[in-house]
């Protein structure tokens, strides 16, 4: 009787893997060759343009010679693209906010980071308050910086952040309201959600910026940014409510009944039993909506707010530079990618950690 042997280890054999996956049929051979050729011809020039031939430093537009990208343009305008018209001497206030934002949210990616949870809670509650004091200023001896001076990446983050922070609680309340047994509350929530969901964001922004001032008496004005923020938050909360309602519906009826059987009232039932489960279920949906919102913030361009895309677009037409439109748009795309990719990684992280085993 021979001893049983362990199955041979599957060594990684590149040639074999390629033969099995890339060259196993005649059409796969053809596809492989075509794709390799396309990558080969495009990656080289792309790298050349992006890095090797590109100009990174210099003093003025004339330093941008050669065929590569003119990153010097981004370099010189970086301050404007980050802060908009925010006064130089006051930019430390924005820097503090950037830093706090990073402190609150970057640890969320690191398992076992001490007090991670508290940092997250701080990011959702304390940070908006600090931002509200710090960015506009006007109290505690801080110089007032009016909202029309805000711009660039900072404004994009403010729009997205306020939209996210505001719409999540509002969305929860609307979702609960829609499933309420009280007809007036339910009716109100249904109408609110359906009206806002049926209107594109661009229309909401136009209404807020063009129509609303006509209805108000002359001389009575809300700041444009405030109107846009309210519009974005209300619009987003309707979407959020529908995502959360999906989670609420997925909770088995038994959970509701068990909670009631324990003698819990409505709010405690929701807070302790239903919402934790429902929100966990719909994390991917919530983050998806956030990513969508983050990208939708560029629409404020049409009402003349200078978010990061707006600042770039207003300067790429500067005639003292060669055609720098491509560089500008690549830069904007990169900024958006960093934030959206971050959010999507975070949601995957969270999903793994909160995996309840419901999934098959």
């Amino acid at each position, binding site marked *: 009787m021979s001893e049983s042997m362990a199955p041979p280890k599957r060594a990684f054999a590149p040639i074999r893997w390629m033969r099995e996956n890339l060259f196993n049929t005649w059409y796969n051979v053809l596809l492989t060759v075509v794709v390799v050729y396309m990558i080969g011809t495009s990656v080289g020039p792309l790298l050349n343009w992006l890095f090797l031939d590109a100009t990174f430093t210099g003093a003025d537009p004339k330093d941008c010679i050669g065929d590569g990208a003119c990153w010097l343009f981004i370099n010189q305008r970086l301050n*404007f693209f980050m802060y908009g018209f925010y006064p130089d001497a006051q930019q430390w206030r924005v820097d503090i906010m950037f830093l706090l934002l990073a402190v609150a949210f970057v640890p969320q990616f690191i398992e076992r980071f001490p007090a991670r949870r508290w940092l997250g809670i701080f990011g959702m509650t304390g940070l908006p308050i600090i931002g509200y004091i710090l960015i506009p200023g006007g109290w505690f001896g801080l110089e007032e910086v009016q909202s029309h001076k805000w711009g660039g990446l900072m404004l994009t983050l403010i729009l997205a952040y306020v939209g996210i922070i505001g719409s999540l609680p509002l969305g929860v309340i609307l979702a609960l309201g829609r499933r309420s047994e009280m007809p007036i509350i339910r009716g109100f929530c249904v109408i609110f959600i359906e009206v806002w969901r049926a209107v594109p964001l661009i229309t909401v922004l136009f209404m807020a910026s063009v129509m609303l*001032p*006509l209805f108000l008496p002359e001389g009575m004005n809300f700041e444009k940014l405030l109107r846009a923020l309210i519009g974005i938050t209300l619009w987003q909360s309707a979407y959020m409510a529908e995502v959360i309602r999906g989670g609420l519906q997925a909770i088995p009826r038994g959970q509701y009944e068990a909670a009631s059987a324990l003698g819990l009232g409505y709010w405690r039932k929701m807070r302790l039993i239903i919402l934790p489960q429902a929100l966990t279920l719909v994390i991917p949906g919530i983050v998806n909506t956030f990513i969508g919102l983050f990208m939708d913030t560029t629409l404020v361009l049409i009402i003349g707010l200078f978010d990061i895309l707006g600042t770039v677009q207003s300067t790429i037409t500067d005639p*003292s530079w060669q055609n720098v439109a491509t560089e500008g748009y690549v830069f904007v795309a990169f900024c958006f990618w960093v934030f959206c990719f971050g959010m999507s990684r975070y949601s995957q992280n969270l999903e793994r950690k909160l995996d309840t085993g419901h999934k098959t």
Partner: protein
Amino acid sequence: MKKLITLAAGTATLLGTLMAGNAMAATTLDAVKQKGHLQCGVTSGLPGFSQPDDKGHWTGIDVDTCRAVAAAIFGDAEKVQFTPLTAKERFTALQSGEIDVLSRNTTWTLTRDASLGLNFTGTNYYDGQGFLIKKDIGVTDAKELNGATVCIQAGTTTELNLADYFRANNMEFKPIVFDTSEQTVQGFASGRCDVLTSDRSQLAALRSKLADPSSAVILPNTISKEPLGPVVRQGDDQWFNIVKWVLFAQINAEELGVTSENVDDMKKSDNPNIQRLLGTDGDMGAKLGLPADFGYKIIKEVGNYGEMYNRNVGPGTPLDLERGLNALWTEGGIMYAPPMR
């Protein structure tokens, strides 16, 4: 029922208070003085007219027009805040009182002047529509453009002017419409059209964006009149006069040879016209509700019309535009201001 009446009364009181609060800031000048700054609507980025520079500081001829108004009121050209506006928003922003002056590359037309509740106060730049064309096509006059494909930016009067011009001359054309100006240039550069049309003030800037600017020429024809100027709300004649005379003061200053450099010496001038302009003789400012030396402040802080032109769009700037129509009437142009007396 009683409750309802109370509610209605409350609402009425509230509305009344709001209206009254509104009526208190009687004139635009008072409101501006109270705010401590002028609120001015500009484009969100048009070379030479209003564009943020490297430092995020607004530059351009439209921007300087606003600075001149601020200098006249406050004696400080920096007491102005700019609201970047899109073409669609601009009139609403003015009508609703969000801005005090609209200086946003806006063409003066009858419809706008008569039906929007607005008044154009003058012209700070006489523009017109022109053509940029590939040199190797060999056309030297717009009348030879029959059958051409033309790149245009969508949603502008440019599109309508072009159609009018070709119809009036019994010519055919094929429009290729783009959304933004840089896309229009790209379309022209990549050979999708033979001709690019836009305001003449922008053609030179667009041409400089081509890989080889010398491969394209600007045709001499101007197919439309585009007088661009500041706009104010209708119904406040004092404010209308202020914005109007600030520009006139700048044009008169150029005619009289008063510049930001020699303005201090000019204060001692014996010429009564200069004395009235700078406020050393006759209180012209009081008639407008402005300080007596408002003319001096404008010239000192912003400069006369020629300085403003040369700094932003004139020869030597990237736009490199000859004075042309915008020269003084004494030098072959049509810039002409009524006398200050």
